[in-house]
């Protein structure tokens, strides 16, 4: 009886509060909330609400004013002048100045894992309280995307500039920013509570009184909570099997819009340093043996998009005119014969291992397991090598001790930020994951990439990247499979969802019921 009363009371409370609380569900648990020193959706989602950035982007890949209400390139593109809004304040009342912007940019440059993002920045000058000039050593068109919420939170210098290491700063778990929502409470692994910033510098926003991030370890539990309408907003939902169920539930909407710049490509990486994978014919044979259609249509129920190259389809630089590697077992076998890999006992040409990232079954383990019967058709005996946890996988792949491995690597908007790292021969490193772990080296590709990185003319840049995509797909250091599906499951009454190119990694200050 008591429990019944409690439930009724909770129900009333929920209704009364329905207007003003947004419950945000996710299985991505962050270590802390400072995106300047860490990449990853888990940190970007809350970080973008707590911190504001110089710029933000719309759904057409066009930069929009945010903390900077105007900007211009000067000096042949080697300087970017930012003019800040006059009324922005941090959550502790102090004003946001150019000093803070300069400090944040240099902090990100020194600590953010994506070195290429701000490597060209030499210094940031602050001729006045509201003007910051970013001085770069060469033209760097990627700078505009680099100054957005996923990468560049504007940190208060008077708090984060105290000399402590920004990567473990004590205030990373109870941060102070100038964003639409301020930090209220955090229970590690359980929930994060944010409150409306009443002094937000954009008038009329935000709309919710509170945002509660609820963290779930288990997709089953999260899906149950969504169905019971306890969770209002769940971006970056990747469990495909449960999507049909959500689509059938009244009051819940499912969309794939938003987040196009993230470019999460799921692929099979080949260690080109190891025989016989140093022979491009062997790699091509593997590409021809894998039925991407089957993976997308059957394994993923038609809910992922095929990826055929290193740059995601939504990017302005995407080149669809590359070799598609439609499944062709006969051709694959022929290539292997040509390469001199003869079938031995039992028709086995070669025994190899496939590694996979533990965690997301549908994108990694399932595909590794699928390769077992599929590559058997071209004479490869596959052993699926399980890593019980991430560090084990990271050690193997970072140490180049693998044959094939599944991997998910993100474009992150501008190719300079997330694409170059996989293909530059200068980025072949020991012990570093998400670098050029395939040991791929092609001087022409190196040249194309460095020229594209500094090219200011959009058309010329696109042409360079198109050539790059053609070459890389032709040489197959990587077999591209699909884009990670990012669905947003939400309460149907929500409006103004974050559907710019950064999706929920951008501020949700316009969202309302």
């Amino acid at each position: 009886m008591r429990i019944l009363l409690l439930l009724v009371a909770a129900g009333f409370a929920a209704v009364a509060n329905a207007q003003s609380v947004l419950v945000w569900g996710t299985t991505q648990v962050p270590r802390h909330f400072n995106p300047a020193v860490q990449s990853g959706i888990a940190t970007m989602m809350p970080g973008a609400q707590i911190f504001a950035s110089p710029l933000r982007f719309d759904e057409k890949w066009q930069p929009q004013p945010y903390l900077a209400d105007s900007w211009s390139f000067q000096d042949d593109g080697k300087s970017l002048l930012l003019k800040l809004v006059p009324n922005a304040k941090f959550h502790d009342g102090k004003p946001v100045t150019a000093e803070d912007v300069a400090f944040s940019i240099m902090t990100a440059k020194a600590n953010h894992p994506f070195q290429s993002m701000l490597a060209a920045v030499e210094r940031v000058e602050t001729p006045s309280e509201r003007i910051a000039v970013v001085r770069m050593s060469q033209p760097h068109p990627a700078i505009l995307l680099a100054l957005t919420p996923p990468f560049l939170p504007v940190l208060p210098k008077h708090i984060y500039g105290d000399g402590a290491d920004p990567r473990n700063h004590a205030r990373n778990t109870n941060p102070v920013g100038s964003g639409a929502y301020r930090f209220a409470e955090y229970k590690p692994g359980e929930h994060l509570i944010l409150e409306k910033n009443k002094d937000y510098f954009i008038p009329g926003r935000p709309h919710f009184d509170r945002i509660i991030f609820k963290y779930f370890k288990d997709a089953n539990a999260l899906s149950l909570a969504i169905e019971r309408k306890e969770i209002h907003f769940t971006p970056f939902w990747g469990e495909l099997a449960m999507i049909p169920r959500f689509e059938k539930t009244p009051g819940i909407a499912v969309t794939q819009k938003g987040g196009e710049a993230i470019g999460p490509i799921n692929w099979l990486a080949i260690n080109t340093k190891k025989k016989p994978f140093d022979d491009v014919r062997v790699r091509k044979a593997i590409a021809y043996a894998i039925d991407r259609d089957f993976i997308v249509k059957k394994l993923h129920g038609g809910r992922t998009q095929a990826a055929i190259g290193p740059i995601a389809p939504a990017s302005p630089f995407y080149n669809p005119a590359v070799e598609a590697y439609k499944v062709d077992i006969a051709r694959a076998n022929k290539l292997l014969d040509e390469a001199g890999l003869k079938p031995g006992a039992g028709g086995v040409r070669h025994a190899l291992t496939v590694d996979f990232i533990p965690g997301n079954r549908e994108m990694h383990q399932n595909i590794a397991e699928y390769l077992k019967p599929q590559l058997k058709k071209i004479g490869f005996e596959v052993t699926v090598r399980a890593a019980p946890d991430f560090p084990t996988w990271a050690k193997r792949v970072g140490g180049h001790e693998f044959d094939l491995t599944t991997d998910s690597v993100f474009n992150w908007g501008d190719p300079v930020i997330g694409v170059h790292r996989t293909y530059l021969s200068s980025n072949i490193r020991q012990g570093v994951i998400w670098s050029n772990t395939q040991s791929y080296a092609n001087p022409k590709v190196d040249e194309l990439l460095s020229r594209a990185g500094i090219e200011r003319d959009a058309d010329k840049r696109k042409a360079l990247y198109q050539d790059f995509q053609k070459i890389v797909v032709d040489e197959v250091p990587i077999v591209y499979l699909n884009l990670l599906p990012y669905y947003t499951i939400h309460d149907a009454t929500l409006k103004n969802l974050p559907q710019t190119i950064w999706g929920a990694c951008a501020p949700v200050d316009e969202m309302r019921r």
Partner: protein
Amino acid sequence: MAEAGRSPWQEAWAVFRRNRAALIGLSLLGAMAVVLVLGPLLYPVDPFDIVGAPMTPPGDAEAPLGTDYLGRDILAGLVRGGRPTVLVGFCAAMITTVIGITIGSLSGYYGRATDRVLGRVVEFFQVLPALLFAMVLITLFAPSLVTVIVAIGVVAWPGMARLTRAEFLRIRQLDFVRSARAVGASDARIILATILPNALPPIIVSATLATGTAILFEAGLSFLGLTDPNVMSWGLMIGSSRNYLREAWWAVTFPGFCIFLTVLGISLVGDGLNDAFNPRLRQR
């Protein structure tokens, strides 16, 4: 009192035979054995082959019990998956028994200093949380069947050791042991040939139950993702289909049910053995 002419073992069997629950358990195990031995011959589908659309419900022509998230045949998985599951359980229980008996017998026979030292070792292992320690071992040595078997065997033996020790302490005092000593038999001979056979009943019961526990342990490790994905076992089936519970409940329910029946059979038999041996002991 034992009837004239019947050995204690025959008498135990007579009691066992009358126990209905134990017989049910035995038949369950018998049925399982038939499925495991003959199954793959009669239903030669490779559990790793993709036979149909992913997550087809049971009742399909291609896959009578449905398919899993990859489109693999559940029935094939059940038929093939029993072997590694039972193998892991059996081998782990063997390791547990051997280690347990060794330490327990030495402890119980020699007593005093040996007992104290070995007692510390037993306590040491008892204090380690079994699952977590097994996880550390598997993380260390990479998930393979051998690692899982060793990990389970190594953490589960303290119970067996305590039991063996208690039995040895008790039997050591009895007359026929004293006379064997007086006659000058070596320690090894006394332990192995004189005391151990008489200590066997509770040890057998315990080993039986340990097999059931080991099977459940393996299932738990698979559920957490800590097993070899190249070997199809029932535990692996549950663990890998876990996220699809609500979409393809058959992929989780059927293997779980198989584990349940197997462990149930083992438990009933173990129970029956316990009852069969006990009246005899009580009458002493």
